[in-house]
């Protein structure tokens, strides 16, 4: 049975439609990332699941309980029994860490000694055992985030929601936190939904990704699926670092499309639904592009425009038939004419 089931949810702010019919299914113990740009509706969807937004259509079911069914059921947030970590952490500044974390248990009328023990345990598991008596203003950003997570975990909710959990951390912390958040959620056996605009974060923490844009679902699947088989230009372009360029379709054969880029011919996986003679957009991951020494199949001539050294690699900018493509190498390139190889399986035509 699905742990979370969201079906055809629509949300409007005033007259402005923000979610235009989104559905997701989440199995027990899964972590799903709601990924998208600002304004894609991902935070709104999260808040709707939490009960902080009122959809105008659709149903939401958590476990076997329907928490929202437009027109008949609308369980208030405090009765939905889920955890939510806010982007701003929303720690109460006038309460200590212990009070913050213990409040959900206090509301559930847990006995004091048991409450204390459970708070201590969860603080320990987020590594803040000695910070119980501090106030939030005395903690660093990373520590505040962990307190917020502790507060969401302390009452073992079946479902935990996180709103941009890593966006307020600096880069170094972010890497650590990515691993650690996933660990904790799996350790407690929770089901999780989190919102992010960062694909690396999404791929690192989630079992599945739901890519949203303009209030609608674009594609849903595992990180690998989304990365290696995007089914739309938006999905392809959103993930990873890409080169996008315009080609003209010459021939279509089954799943392949033969296209012309300048004078060269290249073949890629056809997802365009277009006919020969039409223009299309080609997308390839930058790391799939290889700089080679001579012409050949799936190779196009390119002129080097500029190079940048970033420590782990060289990043190059090439001019191919008037369009600019990037490629990476590990060593410097001689300033000469080059060829770029666009492997068939890695090139998508939309």
């Amino acid at each position, binding site marked *: 049975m699905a742990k979370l089931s969201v079906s055809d949810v629509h949300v409007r702010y005033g007259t402005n439609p923000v979610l235009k019919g989104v559905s997701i299914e989440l199995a027990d113990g899964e972590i799903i990332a709601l990924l998208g740009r600002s304004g894609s509706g991902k935070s709104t969807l999260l808040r709707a699941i939490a009960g902080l937004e009122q959809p105008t259509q659709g149903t939401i079911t958590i476990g076997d309980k329907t928490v929202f069914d437009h027109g008949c059921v609308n369980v208030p947030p405090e009765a939905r029994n889920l955890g939510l970590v*806010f982007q701003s952490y929303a720690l109460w500044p*006038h309460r200590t860490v212990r009070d913050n974390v213990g409040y959900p248990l206090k*509301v559930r009328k847990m006995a004091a000694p048991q409450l204390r023990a459970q708070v201590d345990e969860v603080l320990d598991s987020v590594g803040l055992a000695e910070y119980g008596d501090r106030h*939030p203003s005395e903690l660093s950003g990373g520590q505040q985030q962990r307190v917020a997570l502790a507060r969401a975990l302390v009452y073992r909710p079946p479902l935990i929601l996180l709103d941009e959990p890593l966006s*307020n951390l600096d880069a170094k912390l972010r890497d650590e936190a990515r691993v650690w958040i996933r660990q904790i959620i799996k350790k407690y056996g929770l089901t999780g939904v989190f919102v992010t605009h960062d694909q690396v974060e999404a791929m690192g923490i989630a079992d599945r990704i739901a890519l949203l844009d303009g209030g609608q679902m674009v594609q849903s699947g595992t990180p690998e699926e989304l990365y290696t088989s995007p089914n739309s230009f938006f999905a392809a372009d959103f993930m990873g670092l890409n080169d996008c360029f315009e080609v003209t379709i010459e021939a279509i054969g089954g799943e392949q499309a033969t296209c012309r880029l300048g004078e060269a011919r290249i073949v890629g996986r056809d997802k365009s639904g277009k006919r020969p003679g039409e223009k299309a957009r080609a997308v390839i991951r930058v790391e799939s592009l290889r700089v080679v020494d001579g012409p050949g199949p799936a190779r196009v001539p390119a002129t080097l425009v500029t190079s940048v050294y970033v420590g782990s690699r060289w990043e190059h900018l090439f001019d191919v038939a008037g369009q600019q493509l990037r490629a990476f190498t590990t060593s410097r390139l001689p300033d000469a004419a080059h060829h770029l190889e666009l492997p068939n399986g890695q090139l998508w035509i939309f």
Partner: protein
Amino acid sequence: MTRPFRIGIIAATAVAIFAPLLLVLVQSLLSGPFFGQNVHVTPDAFTYVFTDGDFWRALRNSVIISIGMTAIAVPVGAILAFLFVRSDLPGARWLEPLMLAPMFISSLVLSFGFVIAFGPVGIVSLWVRDMIGFVPWNLYSLHWLILIAGLTHVPHVFIYASSALRNLGSDVEDAARSTGAGPLRVVLTVSLPMVRPALLYSAVLVFFLGFELFGLPLVLADPQGVLVLATYLYKLTNILGVPSYQLMAVVVIVIVAIALPLVFLQRKLLATSDRYVSIKGKAGNQRRVAIGKWKWPALALIVAWLAFTVILPVAALVFRAFLSSWGEGAVLSESLTLEHFRELAGYPNLIRGIVNTFLVASVGGALSVGLYALISLAQHRWKSRWATFLDYSVLLPRAMPGIIAGLAIFWVFLFVPFLQPVRSTLISIWFAYTLVWMAYGMRLVQSSMLQIAPDLEEAGRICGATGAQVSRYVTLPLIRTGLMGAWLLIFVTFVREYSTGVYLLSPGTEVIGSLLVSQWATGAVDTVVALSTINIAMVMGGLFLLTIFRKKQNG
């Protein structure tokens, strides 16, 4: 808070607000007192008022004064609030209680302070005349009235602005300073705009107080024959010999008609209150903005305001309390006397009056603030027509100038059966005061509430707390400063009140204000002034203690 509970509170508040107002409305359409015999419906009252030249003159004057005084009070109040709360001005903590001083004194008495100090034969005026041969100002002119009205209403703006500024995190200002903006720039472009709701609310409220202005024009505008709406109302009570309630009611209807669009405007200007959220879940520190070389002009501004608005008129008043005669040709040193205080000491019921006043103001004031907080919570973050309705209604009791507010509430207590036993107790006076000043107390509480980031409250809901539990655990503690500020404002206002409770007073429930008025009526301004001196001393003493207490707490 559950929906039925919210609706219940708002409905109860609405009944309290509209009972007296509806009486007034009904009265405006009758030919005589609504409880009289042989009274019929007629538009005559409206005809009389709308064809009375004095009414239009009074209306025009009131509008001019309101606009003028708002234009003065808001900027001065805002800048002074910034200086005291956010800048590193030295000595701020000791001077701050003085900022509220004009509010301690009833406007009738304070206006007389101005006359004694700056009037045609005032102490300062005569001194200047001795020096330069003439007095270069005429206190009884309209622009002086506007100036004094504006400056004496600075504390109203100050209270709202300082409360809001106290809750600002420094991060926005730090950000501004880091871009190289000087302190003045920071004030004008960052700090003050962040408290725009507080400034806008207080602007509307001060504008409204302008319509209600009675003591000041009575003393300063009377000699020129300049009428304002409240003094015009006063005139209507006497012009036909027998008080004509229907005419007075028409004037109230006019003021209500002005109130509604004002509230509409205010709501439009504050459409997005999210922009002003500053108590967020990410704790920041509060640091004072260093104002460097602006220190001296700032101090000069504060001293100038204090000198003109507080020190000189109050000193003149206190001085007057010890003089048997003053003015043109009087030799002050020969006129010193303690006679007024002696006379005051022999006044029956003085102690009882003082005790009653303090009871109503302190305990009653705290209850009022509690009530305001409850009503504010009922409409807090609730997008509903009920909340909008409340917003429009809350200011309406203040649309009735004191004289008629008191009368209308008296009628309600008199004619509604289950309220009758309460009429001759302090409760009815407390109720009248609470009702009439509702907009002021509530705005302070509401703006504090809006400063809390919504997600702090949402976090509480997610944790499993109901709306009421969240209010208790999160909202109310976080607005504690706002609540204290509201209580202070209400306390000072209730002590100073004199016209609203007049019809509800009985032997045993006298308050200082009523003693003042009855003395005034006999022309005994000297005892009035003596009483005010005692009044001021007590309130200042109380504030002084409060400052020491606060210092001990924070130190």
